[in-house]
């Protein structure tokens, strides 16, 4: 098991390698010169002289291969350098914004799970009842409403009209409510449908119908035979979404002025702030691999057949 986890962790290396290569290529294909972008952002008139100086300072005057190898070398020691724009170490800036993003991501995921799991199961068990209709309405709403619009609607009703919750910022639990709802509604929409379908599918399984004949109570059938298998697609979905949430939710952070790093990274892209982009790519690749690993481990635990099949093949 530990060997398996170790092997999966090592797969981070080639993925980061490819991701940085693509990133590096894209930055250099783009017609915008990082030095020029920096000067524009700093409101300095880009004369040839200043440009040359900045290029030299950023190491952009060296051959591409040297630049790339230099970047890889620094990444291997987890040193991302200082931001072109703010002259602050990238780590300090990311570390300052990380807690806000993680907080928002985890609460949104938790809220989505807490709402959608009971709702999805109830919608499947009481099919075509009012609760099924309700879950369908929530799903259609959640799936079709753009997040920025939903965010502004929630602000309009709950903060401006009713004055129950703060408009923006971070600090108290009240600040969390609206962004969490905005982010999790689309997740709830997807998870509820996903779970409903898979619960229905499991309930059609022959052994589930036979369990009824053998005198098992409905509740036991759900707990022992239906739910465990039904959770599998949901877990894969949650893993992917968790990665997405943790790499920053730019629109929602923008709407609620949430001090996460979504905005920071978008700005970095506009300003061709290479060290920051580099850090982001590295961070995102690691996160997605970790989330996938987590999903696989949970599924391995839930469905022991996966591991026994693996053994049979080797």
């Amino acid at each position, binding site marked *: 098991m530990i060997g398996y986890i170790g092997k999966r962790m090592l797969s981070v290396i080639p993925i980061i390698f490819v991701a940085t290569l693509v990133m590096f290529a894209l930055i250099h294909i783009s017609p915008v010169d990082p030095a020029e972008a920096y000067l524009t952002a700093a409101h300095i008139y880009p004369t040839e002289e200043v440009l040359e100086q900045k290029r030299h300072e950023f190491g952009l005057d060296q051959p591409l291969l040297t630049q790339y190898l230099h970047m890889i070398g620094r990444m291997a020691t987890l040193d991302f350098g200082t931001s072109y724009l703010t002259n602050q170490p990238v780590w300090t800036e990311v570390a300052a914004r990380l807690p806000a993003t993680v907080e928002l991501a985890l609460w949104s995921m938790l809220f989505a799970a807490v709402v959608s799991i009971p709702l999805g199961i109830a919608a499947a068990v009481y099919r075509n009842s009012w609760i099924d209709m309700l879950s369908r309405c929530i799903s259609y709403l959640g799936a079709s409403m753009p997040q920025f619009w939903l965010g502004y609607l929630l602000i309009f009703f709950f903060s401006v009209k009713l004055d129950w919750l703060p408009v923006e910022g971070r600090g108290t639990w009240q600040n969390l409510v609206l962004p969490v709802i905005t982010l999790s509604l689309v997740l709830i929409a997807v998870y509820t449908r996903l779970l409903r379908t898979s619960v229905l599918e499991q309930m059609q*399984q*022959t*052994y589930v*119908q*036979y369990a*009824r*004949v*053998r*005198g*098992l*109570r409905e509740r*036991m059938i759900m707990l*022992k*035979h239906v739910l*465990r*298998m039904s959770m599998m697609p949901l877990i894969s979905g949650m893993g992917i979404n968790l990665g997405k949430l943790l790499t920053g939710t730019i629109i929602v952070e923008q709407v609620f002025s949430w001090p996460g790093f979504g905005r920071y990274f978008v700005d970095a892209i506009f300003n061709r702030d290479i060290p920051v982009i580099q850090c982001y790519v590295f961070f995102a690749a690691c996160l997605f691999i970790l989330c996938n690993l987590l999903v696989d481990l949970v599924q391995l635990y839930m*469905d*022991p*057949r996966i591991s*026994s*099949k693996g053994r049979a093949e080797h």
Partner: protein
Amino acid sequence: MLEVREVSHSYQQRRWFRRADHTPSVLTDISFTIEKGCCLGLLGTSGAGKSTLGKIILGMQRPSHGQILFEGQDIYRTSRHMSKAMRRDLQVVFQDCYSAVNPMMTAAEIIGEPLDNYERLGTAERRRRIGELLEQVGLSATDAGKRPDQFSGGQLQRINIARAIALKPKLIVLDESVSSLDMVNQTHILSLLAELKASHQLSYLFITHDIRAAMTLCDRIAVMDQGRLVQQEADGEALIHSAHPAVRQLVDSILPEHPANRLVWD
């Protein structure tokens, strides 16, 4: 013990804008009884209605007409579902051994499930009972930790049988229980069923299309054709010489031991 009284059944076909008028009858006026310790074979080609009858007896499908009395109680009378106590005495072994078990559970969990459902046992006692049941069906107690995909079809069907006898039921419905197995396993399972019947005083309703299997295991054989009971015999020999075309068809399907010995019934 089990009495089937004038059971008729037809599947309702609902259509838009008109009520179903011409519903074909799946079962017509079926009556028979199974006494304690007795095995009734229900024989018929596919489509004869034997599985529908099995479902009705198991409480999965309410018949359009007629009654099923188990130990004198009408199983469809009390409520929509059979009572839990009644289910305990009426167990079932299905045809497809793989789809009858949860693929994620171990043998011990599969066999232990009815025990947990009806009896409160301590851990040690529970393990002892499961080991005992595994040995009764010809497996070893060390198989308890294996999952269904690690068993062969014959072994898995033994586990299904162990699960069915775990609660010491009075009647077991064997719905084509050996049909999906190969000949060698069929013979083994049939002799296992015969042993268990003697040792546990079980009654069986043995649903099958295999006249030889029915003759090996059953005390009495009823032949169904197109939803009707066409012949009931206590003696298999009488069936072999029967003149009824449906029975003929089943008898003729027996493979001879040698092609040259193929029986000609004219």
